[in-house]
Structures are given as structure tokens and as C-alpha cells.
């Protein structure tokens, strides 16, 4: 009797969890079904998950007729510049914070950590100053500059994160290498980097997810022919004449890389994203 009852309650709970999941994923089903809907039928009032006369025309339009590849090229350029400069400045900084003592170290690290929780809002607050400053030094409309700005915005979190990661590597490794006469740079490059790969991997994923979806700064600093994919999508949708199916199709293609990355890194991400919470 008790067993039957517990099986029944299991079924009810699981059924409920599935139902809730279905509700939560409706927006994603919906955008997918709008992408394969012919344009005219968007305005019908019928409700269906899989549209009657589905077609891949919108995807065809995105890949062969739209400016998708132009935007993608800009996005990838910004991404590479931002990711490389972020790693180049953050890894040595994290090493410095982890292995050396200097005045103001703890205060700086604490401010980095607190600031990192509010970077999104801070970048909007500083946007006017940034925009006019970039105009003044005549670097407006430069993809490289946008990449560097993104890298700068990653510094508080990534330096802090990598520093915590490097702290977990025993100092004996450094001491041994340094006793053998290696310089600090050699030590960082040949000894620490190979051990710290998993931490750098998580940092790379976090930076990638942030950069790939940033549109606020880019929309202010870039002109239309330099738009990255997110900016292009935001402006595309802002116009009323934009067919929703084309917008949906372009967005889906744009999202594929990050979704794949997200699930590949699921195991590591959990650790990376919640480290702040567990630290407390």
C-alpha cells in the first residue's frame, strides 16, 4: 500500500515537473515555430506548435540573401579581439594577485569582486562618458576599440575568478621552478598555465557568453555597417516592417554556437558561476 502510494506521488510530482518545464520552454518552441512559418501566416489567430505549411525559406534568406555573414564577421572579429586581450591582461594579473603581496591588494580584489556583480548596470551608467570620450579621441566606429572595451569590462570578474583558481594550485610548483632558475614569466608560461587550464577554460566560456550577447555598448559605438549580430538583431526587430520569421531564423542561427558551448561546459560552468555564492 505504502509503496503504491509513493509511486503515485512520484508520478504526480514528475508529471508536474514536466508540465512546468513545458510551460517554461514555450517561448523557445514558439520562436522556433515562427521561424519555419511562412510570413503571411504569422497573423492568423490559430494556435499550433508545428505550423501547417512549414518551410525553411527564412533560414535560406538569412544564409544566402541577408547581411548575416557581414554581421557575423564583425561579431567574430570583436569576439577574437576581446577574448585574446582579456586573457592576455587577466592571466598575469591573476598570477600577480595570487602569488605576490603588495599594498592595497585585498582592497583591490574586494572592489573587483563587488564591481563584477554590477558590471552590466555600470556599463550603462558610464556609457555617455565612454561615448563622448571615444569620439574625442577619434576612435568611434572602430571594432577593435569595442573589443578592447569588452575586454576591459571583463577584468573585475575574470581577474578575481582566475586569482581564486590559481590560489588552489600549491606554491611548491612555483618554488621548484624558480629555484631551477626560471624567471617569473617562464614560470607562468611553462608551469602555471598548463596546470591552470581548467580555470582558464571556464574564464574563456564566461567571457565568450558575455561578449557574444553584448549589444548596448556596441549599438552606441558602431555605425550600421559595423554592427555585430546582437546589435543587428535588436535594430532589425525594432523596425515594424521586419518579418518576424526572418528575425527568428537569424536569431536561431546566431544562438547555436553559444547554446552548444553552454551545454558542453555545463559541468564546469556550474562551478564557475556559483563560486561567488559558495565563497560566502
Amino acid at each position, binding site marked *: 500500500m505504502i509503496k503504491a502510494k509513493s509511486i503515485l506521488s512520484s508520478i*504526480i510530482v514528475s508529471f508536474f515537473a514536466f508540465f512546468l518545464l513545458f510551460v517554461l*520552454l514555450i517561448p523557445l518552441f514558439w520562436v522556433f515555430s515562427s521561424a519555419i512559418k511562412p510570413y503571411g501566416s504569422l497573423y492568423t489567430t490559430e494556435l499550433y506548435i508545428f505550423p501547417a505549411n512549414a518551410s525553411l525559406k527564412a533560414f535560406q534568406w538569412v544564409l544566402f540573401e541577408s547581411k548575416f555573414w557581414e554581421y557575423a564577421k564583425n561579431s567574430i572579429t570583436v569576439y577574437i579581439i576581446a577574448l585574446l586581450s582579456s586573457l592576455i591582461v587577466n592571466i598575469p594579473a591573476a598570477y600577480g594577485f595570487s602569488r605576490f603581496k603588495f599594498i592595497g591588494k585585498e582592497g583591490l580584489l574586494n572592489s573587483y569582486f563587488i564591481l563584477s556583480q554590477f558590471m552590466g548596470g555600470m556599463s550603462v*551608467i558610464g556609457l555617455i562618458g565612454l561615448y563622448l570620450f571615444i569620439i574625442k579621441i577619434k576612435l568611434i566606429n572602430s571594432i577593435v576599440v569595442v573589443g*578592447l572595451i569588452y575586454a576591459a569590462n571583463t577584468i573585475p570578474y575574470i581577474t578575481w575568478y582566475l586569482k581564486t583558481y590559481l590560489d588552489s594550485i600549491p606554491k611548491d610548483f612555483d618554488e621548484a621552478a624558480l629555484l631551477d632558475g626560471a624567471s617569473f614569466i617562464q614560470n607562468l608560461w611553462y608551469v602555471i598555465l598548463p596546470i591552470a587550464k581548467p580555470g582558464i577554460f571556464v574564464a574563456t566560456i564566461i567571457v565568450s557568453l558575455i561578449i557574444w550577447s553584448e549589444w548596448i555598448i556596441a549599438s552606441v559605438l558602431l555605425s550600421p555597417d559595423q554592427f555585430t549580430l546582437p546589435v543587428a538583431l535588436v535594430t532589425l526587430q525594432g523596425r515594424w516592417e521586419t518579418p518576424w520569421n526572418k*528575425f527568428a531564423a537569424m536569431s536561431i542561427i546566431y544562438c547555436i554556437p553559444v547554446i552548444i558551448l553552454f551545454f558542453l561546459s555545463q559541468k564546469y560552468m556550474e562551478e564557475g558561476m556559483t563560486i561567488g555564492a559558495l565563497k560566502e
Partner: protein
Amino acid sequence: MKKPLWRSSIAILMILPSILLFSFFFLYPICYSIYLSFTNVNFFNFIKGFDFIGFDNYRKLILEGKFFTPLIRTLTFSVTSVSLKVIVGLFLSLLFSLPQLKIKKILYPLYLLPWAVPWFFLVMIWKGMFSQDFGLINQTIRMFGGNGIDWLFNKNNAFLAYNIVEAYLVYPFFISTMLAAIKGISQEIIEAAMMDGANSWKRFWWIIVPLIKKPFQWATLTTTIASFMIFGVPYLLNKGGPSNENEFLLIFGYKKAFELGRYGYASAFMVTTLTILLIIILLFNKISKLAKDE
């Protein structure tokens, strides 16, 4: 004696590039904003030259009450949206802590799926779903014989829509934070509690809640501050409309600068927001320090 000095100069060399990049593209622009907030700079006189006008922008902000309305609106939103997020987050972690739920391993990544999608795209999907004519929500309402709701062109409905979308964006963060904490509890403890006759609710309250308390406080604090700096969701849904009735602090400042070109005035607005934000962050720092000492 020479060695420590040499070591710390190496440390500075390693940190310097990051400090320079950060100062140049993040700190300096914010300082420049502060300077601009004391000038009459706008779209037309920025290149030709603008004048220092002291506290005029701030005086205007405060005397005309232009700061007060968005501030109250933002605080209201923080309260409503954080409450909603906390309720949804607690509910979902309760669901996932139930031993009756057998397929957690499959369900968990699927629940996190929206997190994998860039947030601005989710907001735009919701914009489509809220659309008057072809949006899924109104289609569903009509299917059941109701009239469609004017979601984004009505002040209160739009406010409700922001809350729904914000909760949708944040729930995966809550679940993953809570579950990282719950994972530490062994299934045996939960089952032992059940043997003792603890029902689900008691088990949740006495076993789960104490364990998720810290991460939960953490998640609540960060979302509170994130709600205070709300920008993307209302901006993408209807630009804080209809007709500016739902402008929050950052949206107000952004629109004054990039739609009207009133850079000096908008900077004063942003700097005032920043000041309030810093006060909140300092309090937040105090609270998290207190939590650490506990």
C-alpha cells in the same frame, strides 16, 4: 632586503596592463561622465565647445522632480520583481529537493536551457509573445474566448510584463545557486527525515532551508541590485513606454543622452544614480561581511 621590493615590482608589472586597460576604458569614462555632468554639453556643442555650469544640471534634476519619479518607479520595480523572483526560485528549489522527483538528471539541464540563450534574444521573444495580434499569449486568451490584452501599450500591463520577463531570465540562476547548495545534502539524510515522519514541508523547512540560506541571501542581494539597475528588459520590450510612463533610472538617463542629445543633463542623472548605487553597494558589502562573521 632587496628581494621583497623586487618581487613587488614584478607583481606590479604583471598587474599593470590590466589596470591600464581597465582605467582607460572603464574608470576614465566614468570620471569623464562626472566632469560632463557639471557642463552644458549637448549634441550640438560637443565639438565646438561647451561651458562649465556648476551644479545647474543637478539643481534642475532635483527642483523639477525629474529624478524622483523614475527613482520611485525603480524602487517599486525592485520590490515587486525581487519578490516574484524569490517566490519562483524557492518554489523551484523545493520542487527539485523532493525525493519523489526521480528524473532530476534529465530535467535539470532542460530547466537551465533558457540560460544558454542570450538574454536579449529571450526578451525579444517575449516581446513577440506579448504582441497584441500574433503574440502567443493573446492567441491563447482568445482561444479560450477572452479578449486580447494590450500588454505593451498599457502602463500597468507593461510593468507586469517586465516582472514576468525578469523572473524568467533569472530563475535558472536561482535554481543553479540553490541546487549547488542542496547537492551537499545526502539523499540518506532526507530519507531518514522522512522515516521520522517529517512531511515534505517540514523537511524543506528544517533541512533544505538552513543549507540554502547563505547562497539564497546572496542570490537575493545580487538580484536586488540588478533590479535597481534595470535597463535591458524594459528598453527592448517598449523603451520604457507607453509614452515614457515606465521609465526607470537608467532608461531615463540613456534616452535623454542618446535620443535627445542632452549629454550634460543625462550625465548628472547617471552620476546621481551611481551615487545611490554606491551607497547600496556599501551597505551590501557591510551585510556580506556581517554574514561572513556570523
